[in-house]
């Protein structure tokens, strides 16, 4: 098995396979993440779902190497997560953190930092439909525009895997549609997408497979069709039907 994974590392999408083994993350003695085993397939779009406080954002940060697990390990392409592998990933935060510069300068900054061709910045802005606002201060863009810029900046790093942590939270439907279009296009271009949301309809539109979290544990992991057509756990069924509160009460 390791030999097979190594071959994939060198040539194909196997390098993007993320495996979590006995992963745990504790804060002040409380276990917030507890995942005995989980393997995310190396292609397509995985949607991580779950109610508030389920640990979705924490899991994303652990997989991106922003925080260290208290126990267990994360393997990418069969190897422990390394700074080099983290560099091949990108993360878009729920609230975009933009530099105090123009829109195009935000892209230029990343291209320069990664030693990439800075002439790509305009085409990246075109890709997220922000070329007309290239010279506007980034922090004066609307919420949806700022999030599109954050995605363009993440794509500027040419990531193998793109994590998105509820990028459409509190955006209007038009902005949501625009961002979903950009994410879908990136997925078509071969970027591995791991998308956190608690919007069931959005998950239906984007997901190839779903990881459903509850109380820091993976309650269910399945293909999108299987998950939405017949969730296996009570908590997932209750969540999809919008009656999670009743389950909690009982």
């Amino acid at each position, binding site marked *: 098995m390791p030999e097979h994974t190594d071959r994939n590392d060198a040539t194909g999408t196997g390098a993007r396979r993320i495996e979590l083994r006995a992963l745990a993350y504790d804060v002040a003695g409380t276990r917030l993440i507890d995942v005995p085993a989980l393997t995310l397939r190396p292609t397509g779009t995985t949607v991580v779902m779950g109610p508030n406080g389920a640990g979705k954002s924490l899991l994303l940060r652990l997989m991106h190497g922003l925080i260290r697990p208290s126990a267990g390990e994360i393997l990418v392409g069969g190897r422990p997560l390394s700074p080099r592998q983290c560099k091949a990933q990108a993360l878009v*935060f729920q609230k975009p953190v933009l530099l105090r*510069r*123009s829109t195009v300068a935000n892209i230029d900054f990343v291209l320069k930092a990664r030693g990439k061709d800075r002439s790509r910045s305009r085409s990246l802005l075109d890709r997220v439909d922000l070329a007309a606002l290239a010279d506007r201060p980034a922090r004066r863009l609307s919420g949806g525009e700022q999030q599109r810029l954050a995605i363009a900046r993440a794509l500027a790093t040419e990531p193998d895997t793109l994590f998105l942590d509820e990028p459409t939270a509190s955006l209007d439907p038009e902005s949501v549609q625009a961002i979903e279009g950009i994410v879908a296009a990136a997925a078509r271009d071969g970027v591995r997408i791991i998308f956190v949301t608690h919007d069931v309809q959005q998950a239906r539109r984007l997901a190839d497979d779903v990881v459903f979290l509850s109380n820091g544990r993976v309650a269910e992991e399945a293909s999108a069709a299987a998950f939405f057509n017949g969730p296996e756990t009570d908590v997932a069924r209750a969540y999809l039907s919008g009656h999670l509160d009743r389950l909690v009460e009982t």
Partner: protein
Amino acid sequence: MPITASDGHSIICLAAALASAKSACKPLPFVGMSLVFRKFCRKREILQQIAESVGLAIGLLLAADADLLEIVTLSLYVSLSATSIACVLGLPLGAILAVTRFPGRGPVLVLINALMGLPPVVVGLIVYLQLSRSGPLGFLGLLYTPTAMIIAQTILIAPIVVALSRQVLEDLHLEYAEQFRSLALSARQTIQALLWDGRFALFTVALAGFGRAVAEVGAVMIVGGNIDHLTRVMTTAITLETSRGNLPLALALGIVLLALAMAVTAAVHGIRAGTAGHADA
């Protein structure tokens, strides 16, 4: 305070004084002048002195007095040079302290914050001991030169620049840290980005340093010596004129110094306003 009959004499004196402005404050030839009248005369003296000083200051500026221009130019040269050097050294150091964590960082921050209150005369004395003929750097022959004054002012304001920039950039780094880690930026790239994005706040830090430098007298007096046409700056000139009893001229120079500081501040704010449109600081 209600006027009583006993004050009648004073009121007559007051009327006489007001009738003749030029002689108002001359000692009047009767004994037992009331306290009210004496206070009035004193206040009038002060007001006249201020008015005279303002007039003198405007006159000095309008006449573009060569001596004054020389002093102003040297003041600006010394203080702006010291501010520039302190910023070149202090801003990166402040950024490093903002971004990095190392054993002993806490005591280092306490020390730098404490150095913000360095007494100028102490700095002047230390630099004097280093640059004096018998000191370790005496061979450089820098004592009583503008260079010595720049060195003293740089030492004086560098802790201010380091401490304030560290605070400004640490706050900014709190906002950016997770994004920068996600982008896998090196410490050098992080520091460069923070310095650039915090540039408008850092302008204010530099202004604080300049303000301290241009208003400082103790250190430049000791290492510069207040030598006419060589090391005389605004503050040392003011000190000299005060000791000579030439208070209107001292006050006039003070007004020019204040105007100078305000002009530099306004220029920096102008630059900031002109460029802030591209950033949203």
